[in-house]
């Protein structure tokens, strides 16, 4: 029993920590001062940690976001080619967004977007409506709509006129460099890397984030001719995107055993942060967009489910939770407290885990979580009924343990089933279905944790210890 109390104390402490993670941000007024209460985040302890805060990611449905109208201008395209041109540009644009989405996933961030097409063939209007939850910087979005044509200026100092004066050399815009014949078509893949060899002229100060470009095997001769033909080291290659210089070739050595002699790192001339680097990398990852693709409108977007819906949902969830627990107390009387405590733990664990994983807070997630709550409640009720029946003639610790293990065993089966289904869902499910199942799955896992660890100790204390204390 003492062991149980110690374990309950441990789980109690953990529950308090998770509660601190789960609580929503709110403001209280004490006297004349306002205090902002927010949840516990990694940045409170580790300011440099990759994940800065534990929070739900916003959804367009409940929190609104931003909408960009990308227009594909068809003025110079023949009528018969307009749809094809639109489709090619749309596919390239979607590919860029998807690549960026994957980069963000690696950085433990999420980007959900909706893409819609609005076409009026009569007026030759072809638009892409791209919607992002929450706020997105307009300048960053506009980078996605730049054509992204790559050109590379490489060292040509060995072929320079030996009679050229220093003034003449200085007058040349990019020094003793010439444009190479490398194009977007030669690029196999572009990645964001953190590598100590990615520096320009000072090995002691590399960039945090660089772009690693791997070329196709078919571009080997262009690569050799561009980067290896004149390796004086005085004029490192410069990467241009749409005629604007964005990076110089890193002077550090790149070790690529998979594609030897086809990979280089670019030392970027833009902000040294993951997201900006990822945007550039995603623009470089595919064929260029046509120069008729323009971001011509950018606005805020109201929550599609209604501005106040999230607030109403919060009130409804709290009311539901209260009503359910009151019902349990009325029906099971004092024994109902076990269910109430387990339900509270379930709510804390589920919300905290969802926040830690930064899930997108949309209606599907909430409703999926509710279904998992119903499943958890069913098992808790099942356990309570068993205990009530067994306890009518007195109950021993072993009997309690057996009843508990019986319930837990079946909940474990449910958890395993859910995990297997999660694997299937992650491969096949459409977005809304996946979101609902994520809510359900996380809820089931929270339920499993509650039932597996604090549950048994609570059960023993609440039933056995309380019998000795003559509480019931």
């Amino acid at each position, binding site marked *: 029993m003492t062991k149980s109390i110690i374990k309950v104390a441990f789980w109690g402490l953990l529950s308090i920590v998770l509660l601190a993670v789960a609580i929503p941000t709110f403001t209280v007024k004490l006297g004349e001062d306002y205090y902002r209460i927010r949840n516990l985040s990694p940045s409170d302890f580790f300011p440099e940690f990759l994940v800065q805060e534990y929070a739900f990611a916003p959804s367009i*449905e409940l929190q609104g976001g931003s*909408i960009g109208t990308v227009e594909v201008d068809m003025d110079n395209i023949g009528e018969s080619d307009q749809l094809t041109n639109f489709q090619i540009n*749309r596919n390239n644009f*979607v590919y860029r967004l998807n690549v960026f989405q994957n980069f963000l996933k690696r950085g433990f961030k999420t980007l959900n977007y*909706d*893409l*819609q*097409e*609005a*076409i*009026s063939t009569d*007026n030759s*209007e072809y638009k892409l409506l791209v919607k992002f939850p929450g706020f997105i910087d307009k300048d960053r979005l506009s980078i996605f709509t730049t054509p992204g044509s790559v050109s590379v200026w490489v060292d040509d100092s060995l072929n320079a006129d030996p009679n050229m004066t220093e003034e003449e050399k200085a007058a040349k815009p990019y020094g003793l460099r010439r444009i190479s014949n490398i194009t977007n078509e030669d690029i196999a893949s572009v990645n964001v890397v953190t590598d100590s060899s990615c520096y320009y002229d000072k090995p002691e100060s590399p960039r945090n984030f660089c772009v690693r470009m791997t070329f196709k095997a078919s571009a080997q001769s262009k690569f050799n001719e561009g980067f290896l033909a004149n390796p004086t080291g005085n004029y490192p290659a410069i990467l241009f995107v749409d005629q604007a210089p964005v990076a110089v070739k890193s002077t550090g050595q790149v070790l690529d055993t998979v594609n030897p002699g086809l990979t280089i790192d670019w030392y970027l001339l833009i902000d040294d942060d993951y997201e900006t680097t990822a945007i550039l990398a995603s623009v470089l990852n595919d064929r260029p967009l046509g120069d008729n693709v323009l971001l011509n409108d950018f*606005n*805020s*977007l*109201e929550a599609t*489910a*209604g*501005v106040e*819906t999230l607030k*109403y*949902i919060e009130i*409804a*969830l709290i*009311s*539901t939770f209260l*009503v*359910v627990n009151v*019902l349990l107390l009325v*029906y099971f009387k004092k024994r109902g407290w076990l269910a109430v405590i387990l339900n509270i733990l379930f709510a804390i664990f589920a919300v905290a885990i969802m926040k830690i994983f930064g899930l997108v807070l949309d*209606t*599907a997630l*909430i*409703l*999926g979580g*509710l*279904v998992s*709550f*119903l*499943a958890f409640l*069913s098992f808790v*009720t*099942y356990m309570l*009924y068993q205990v009530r029946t067994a306890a009518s003639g007195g109950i021993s610790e072993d009997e309690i343990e057996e009843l508990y293990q019986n319930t837990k065993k*079946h909940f474990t*089966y*449910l958890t395993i*089933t859910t995990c297997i289904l999660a694997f*299937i*869902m992650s491969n*096949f*499910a*459409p*977005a*809304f*279905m996946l*979101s*609902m199942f994520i809510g*359900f799955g996380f809820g089931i896992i929270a339920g499993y944790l509650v039932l597996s660890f604090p549950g048994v100790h609570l059960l023993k204390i609440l039933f056995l210890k309380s019998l000795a204390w003559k509480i019931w």
Partner: protein
Amino acid sequence: MENLVKKISATTTAWIVLVLIVLSLASLLLFKLNLGPEFSSARVIVAQLDHEESLKDIESKANEIIRPAAITKESTSKFYFYFQNTNELEITAFADKFAEVQPGVLTVKDYNFSYSGEIFIVERVIIIAVIALIIHLVYVAITFKDTGLKRMDLLPLLSVELFSLGIAVLLLFGVGSALGELGLVMDSIYWVIFLIAVAIVIIFRIYVLLRYRDMLKKQSSNKFVDVYKQMFKKYWPEFVFIFCLAIIVCVLPLTVLGTKYLLAAILVLVAILFSIFNFIFLERYFLEFLQGSKFLSEEKIKSKSSLLKKW
């Protein structure tokens, strides 16, 4: 409760099920699915105003002309009206009429509209449904492990699962398409509510299975129906309690999602009602039918001795 069961005979139950199946199929064939603009192509009218308006006000004005499938608001004064199954004349009429009833309309343009991204949705959902069903049946089989049943005894129990879930899903589709005819647009939230309704049926099934299992372990009778009757007699108050919990947990929060989703909450109620009907009548009579049928008799499957081994 036993008296209530006696009031409706097996034949009446069979007729009720038959009528439900026919009605559901008829509803599906007649009304089809009123899929939202997220799942099928649509027309969108974009109206730009010269002043700020609330989405609610614009929605009520639009609904007076022709009810759009959805309306969204961009910035403070730009509105998108999504229409489905609407012809060119109606679109033009809406655009003209809206410009009349709404002051300060700067431009009204219409476009063909479609979502990009998600493809092969139906095929993917079918794959998930089939695999989920198989996983559920495996779960059922594992639940009955070590209860003294023979392998062949699993067949009627698995048949009951298939039968119950099949009818439930068909019924939900039928009710859904009828609601679609009443104007409910089947967007992603609708389908989430649909899945919740299916999940409720499954959760009840799991509870019934757990109690049925407990009763099987206590009973010496090898007749499924007898065990089921005993289980029903002893545990029906538990099921009433669970049904109450389900209504509170799954219906109450839906009431705040707006009127259109309140209509979708009917699906959840249908799922709960079906689960009650299934628990009280359908499952019992179906087990009775299976027990009486020659299909699953021991003589019939004597040759397949592996089925007679203990599960």
